[in-house]
């Protein structure tokens, strides 16, 4: 099934005649409708998961390795934050309000929506060739020089060239593939491994990660990696032109005129 806009058509086909006569704005297709839809659903879910995840962690900001761990056992590490539970030794003289009830409910609901959205994205991405065309680096792309340039250009705060506005460089491609096919699956797996019901049906999902508390610690670090990705992702969008790129992810079209000219 062809999803409208998923194929990078020559620009002139997609330009409605009324708009193409506009003097400054030249429109080019950038993201398919499905990519845009799943991107923003995932964004909403991500923030819900992040906020509620923080709330849940606050009730026990200690992390362990292995199967078990309580305030009576030595933690792997403890976050230097106050807790929402009186019995957690934090060194702070106060206890934060308990937010776990709705936080857990929203965490799991957002996880469900994120996972279903992710499945839709991956299945359609495979069917339409989105991964192959837009994310898998081509052999020509994949040189150390290209990789180095994609690192150093943003570090010098250089704006991407016009050519890069319609495609991804090798570093972006590898990062997106890593997030989609490594970090997201790992955060889902380590989350599910903490579910007692899920673990009863699939005990290997816990033992392979080294136990329930290991799963929790892995879940925490993969979440941190995803937050780091979010910061870099937003920084790159800002560098490339925030409104232009964000507009492209909303409308599918990128205005290739100079911003703030």
């Amino acid at each position: 099934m062809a999803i409208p806009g998923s194929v990078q058509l020559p620009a002139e086909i997609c330009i409605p005649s009324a708009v193409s006569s506009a003097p400054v704005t030249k429109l080019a297709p950038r993201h398919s409708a499905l990519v845009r839809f799943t991107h923003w659903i995932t964004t909403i879910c991500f923030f819900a998961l992040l906020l509620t995840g923080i709330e849940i962690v606050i009730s026990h900001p200690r992390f362990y390795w292995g199967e078990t761990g309580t305030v009576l056992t030595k933690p792997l590490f403890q976050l230097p934050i106050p807790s929402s539970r009186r019995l957690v030794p934090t060194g702070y003289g106060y206890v934060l309000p308990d937010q776990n009830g709705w936080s857990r409910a929203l965490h799991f609901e957002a996880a469900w929506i994120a996972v279903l959205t992710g499945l839709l994205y991956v299945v359609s991405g495979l069917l339409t060739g989105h991964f192959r065309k837009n994310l898998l680096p081509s052999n020509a792309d994949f040189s150390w020089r290209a990789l180095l340039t994609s690192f150093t250009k943003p570090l010098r705060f250089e704006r991407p060239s016009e050519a890069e506005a319609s495609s991804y460089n090798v570093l972006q491609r590898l990062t997106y593939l890593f997030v989609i096919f490594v970090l997201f699956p790992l955060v889902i797996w380590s989350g599910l491994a903490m579910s007692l019901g899920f673990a009863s049906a699939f005990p290997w999902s816990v033992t392979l990660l080294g136990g329930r508390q290991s799963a929790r610690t892995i879940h925490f670090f993969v979440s941190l990696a995803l937050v780091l990705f979010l910061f870099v992702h937003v920084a790159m969008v800002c560098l490339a032109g925030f409104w232009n790129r964000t507009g492209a992810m909303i409308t599918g079209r990128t205005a290739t005129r100079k911003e703030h000219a």
Partner: protein
Amino acid sequence: MINLSRRKLLVSGLAATAGASGLAVAARLAQKYGLVPPDHGGIYGLGETLTYASQRLLTRHSLAREFSRSQISPRPFPNELAPLTEEFKRLQAGRFADWRLSVDGLVAEPASFSIADLKSYPSRSHITELACEEGWSYIAEWIGVPLSHVLNVVGVHPQAKYVVYTSMEPDTWDSIDMADALHPQTFLCYGMNGSELPVAHGGPLRIRLPRQIGYKNIKFITRLTVTDSLKRFGKGLGSAACEAGYAWYTGI
């Protein structure tokens, strides 16, 4: 342009109709096969229902992970307790000889059991993990009588759908569906790690559901009520925890 948008409109209209009727059919089937939790209303109802339904389909007969004796946590952490009531202290002074567990509702013969009565039934144990919704967990050996045994003794009516369990602690009650009530690892637990169940861990009688989170494993059980509907209990959400914003089903 006009043709394209008309076609789009038609296609999306059809898709929406198919989606809506598909959802309606799914909701009916879910209701029929007991896949809808009592706290399915509100903004988190979708997530609660998806979790409960999928775990009911996946885990109806699965067993909680069991551990070896060497994996038992040396210092099991008893979570914070509300101050014990005067009545509890009185029963504790009598070494719980007068503790009663009453069983009523949709049963052939309502009955009342002492701890000694419960101990006279075949004793079972499992070494399982107790995991709190806060994040911590420990492993202990839990000793008791399977809830299914007690339910068989009183004779459960076929229309039974839930077992409501009530604590001696004020405003503390919860419920489970029959799949969990009849599950072989669901215990009325009176022992832990080879001795009596300590008061800090819910002694003399605690319900133990190793496939659900700690707060569902209520301490100081005094009453079981078998029912076909949770509407008459509290606000009808299935537990006191639900009324405080905590989920009814805690397999996750």
